[in-house]
């Protein structure tokens, strides 16, 4: 089965791999060890030491905490800011900017590209630690904040990666 050098995976993440190579990776079956190489590279880049269990956004990770309570699975921004347990929606702990006024909408969608704020709003979720824009969602005004993704971590590790996830303390 295919397996690639860490350097290639690094270029893939950065989008600097030549298109032909990227395309050929896409057309193959997934390499067996991709996930762990991928996690290793991300781990080198984040500003915390907790073990990354699963990336859930460009700057967001579910991690197993090193500090107390040790092993607890929380969502962290790459800067280390903690958003709480992964089974809770991290967005509720982010700084939120809602674009529901003409002027603010026009900053992004000027003129005829604009939308009707009575029907839709854009919500931007920003990290309180480093001010990185972490996620954007479009919803009808009044619609609850969307919980994007609640993974079955144990199943994923056991059935897809073939390894057991260390238990989380109760």
């Amino acid at each position: 089965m295919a397996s690639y050098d860490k350097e290639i995976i690094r270029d893939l993440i950065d989008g600097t791999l030549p298109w032909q190579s990227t395309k050929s990776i896409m057309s193959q079956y997934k390499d067996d060890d991709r996930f762990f190489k991928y996690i290793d590279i991300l781990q080198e880049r984040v500003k915390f030491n907790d073990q990354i269990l699963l990336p859930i956004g460009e700057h967001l990770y579910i991690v197993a905490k090193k500090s107390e309570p040790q092993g607890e699975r929380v969502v962290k921004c790459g800067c280390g800011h903690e958003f709480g347990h992964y089974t809770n929606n991290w967005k509720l702990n982010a700084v939120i900017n809602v674009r529901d006024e003409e002027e603010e909408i026009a900053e992004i969608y000027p003129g005829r590209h604009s939308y009707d704020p009575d029907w839709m709003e854009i919500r931007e979720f920003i990290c309180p630690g480093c001010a990185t824009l972490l996620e954007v969602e479009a919803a009808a005004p009044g619609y609850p904040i969307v919980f994007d993704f609640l993974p079955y971590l144990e199943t994923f590790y056991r059935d897809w990666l073939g390894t057991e996830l260390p238990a989380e303390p109760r």
Partner: protein
Amino acid sequence: MKKTTPLVLGIDAGGTMTDTILVDKQGNFAVGKAPTTPNYESEGFIESAQDATNIWNLDINKTFEELEVALYSGTGMLNTLLSRTGKRIGLIVTRGMEDAVLMGRGLQSWAGYSYEDRLHAVTHAHPDPLVPLSRVRGVTERIDHFGQVVIPAYEHEAVSGVKELLEQDIEGLCVCCMYSHVNPEHELQIGEAARRVFAEQDIDIPIYLSHHVRPIIREQSRLNSTLIEAYATSQGREQLLGVETAAKQHGFSNSMQTMLSYGGLADVRYPRLHETMISGPVGGLLGARHVGELVGADSVIVSDMGGTSFDIGAITRGKVPIEDEPTLARFKLNLPTLAMDTIGAGGGTIVKVDPYTHKVSLGPESAGSVPGPVAMDMGGTEPTIADCDAIMGRLNPDNFLGGKVQLNVDKAKQVLKEKVADPLGVDVYEAAEGMVNMLEMEAKSSIESIISSRGVDPGEYHLMAYGGSGPLHMAEYSRGLGFKGVLSFPFAAAFSAFGCTTADYLHRHSQSVHIMTGPDSSDKDREEARRQINEIWSELDSQARSELISEGHETDAIVCEPFAMMRYTGQLEDVEVAAPVTKLESDEDLDKLTQAFEDLYEQINRSVSGYGTAGFTIMELGLNARVEKVKPELSRRPLGSKNPDPEAAKGKRSMYYNRAWHEAQLWEMDMLKPGNVLEGPAIVEHPATTLVIPAGDRVRVDEWTILHYEHGEDTQNSVGNVL
């Protein structure tokens, strides 16, 4: 030493190897090989030719002196295009069409992809344009589809555009205006303006006008053809001229020929050299047509299985359909090409098993010649079809490529077991046969799809199987399809190169038109249609003749065969109708032309009725200008004994077939004689190919030494055993 006078030398320079086929009048041939030398193709050319002449112990200088024809097709231009190392060109288009180079055609973003990749849009990407947007300028002008000037060409814009492009150090200028195929006035005018600017600045670079390249409808294809001609052909031409010089140094007295995509030969000085860029599978079709004529089979399905791909085409009553917009290096071109379908299936095709779902898939990746199949022991790590064949005893490990390569069967077995058999939980031999059957099934279904999509009745057709891997798999991929006959050749591996040597000098010229006639047409309309048709045919006639004369052919030897691309009005596809007369002198002649269309239409679409009441539309008028060339013949010998000579027998070997081991009789292909009949289980070996005959089937050698494959009546269909 063989006493023979070589007649034609055909050379095909591929990516890795340059193949030579030397043919004499009796159809004997010698095949030579040498590594391709991409920077100085002439070196590989001479070395490969030397290799072929050595087989017959001929002196290379004497051979070149005696040769009537030498033809060479290289990959230089294609490589220039693929590696994007061509000329720095500038482009002038109708204002508003500047982005055409970036937008391309949607299908260019997935052309050549596997079925899976075509479905997954994330893999789609447009090919890099040959000219960046910064070197494209628009000129205000417009000609409508009737050819009338709607907006005159703004010459001052052309002048300033050309000046800006010259500042960017362009090495060639292309001009492509909308509807220039109907009225080239503006392209010519812009070309003139550019020439004046060049003269003022004392610059001498070539100008390519799209209607000169080929005046055919569809802007994007015309644009691509023009750009590729400008971008890629000049270095290619230098290589071809270099090859010619090398041949002349060895005493060759004629000019070197190259192969056009529609199966004709042209002098290497031919002005539209991009027409030589798709010539790969053309040879097989020409060879099949030639052999078909000799043996009285005018309708043939050709199937060419090599290391990487499986190419299939159909010849119907001696006619090969022309594909008018082929794809080259993922660009849609405006270039008539002999129509062939291709799928990624050959001896080098890699076998894969999905680690999660255990789904088995083949290719389309191929191990190619480097690193090659695992068994070749040259660094291949992925199991291929050839490995499966070796494991099952169908390939002789000691006589692969005539013994040049020793196959490591144990290594192949180990890799196949580890990567395929074990994950699937089956026996390694069962796995090997399953993979081979999958390949054969894919090949078979591609033949079936040609049969059903072209309305072909297989009972009228012969199947010809060739290519290095063709005879190895033909038993199964042709089984149960109901062909009139299934043929292969002792020289199956070199059949394409042989086919190239059967080509005539042939140039095709054509012009888009839009001429309609129907039951309601008045006499005046019909007369006007005739006038238009005659005018275009006569223009193309003189153009074609002067081109062939300039290549050194005698006027008397040139035969011009006009044709019309016709359809029932309202249809979307044309058929190429050979004109029954070269000039439509009278109203009846016009009827003869439409009648010729209706006859042909009925032949092609047997079950579909004609629809003359809709009227007829001519979309393109053209002509094929042909000069006959000497052709090799196959030698015909009387049928002899059914039993092959004892020297042809090479012993026995165990062969796995239909999930059981059989003791197969081994034969040497070159020792077979007309009249011999070989009963399966048997394996016929040749340095470049292997023919497998399972139990129940047999092969008959006819008076031309063509191998006729005959399936047993109730043999088990091995393809039914797919895992």
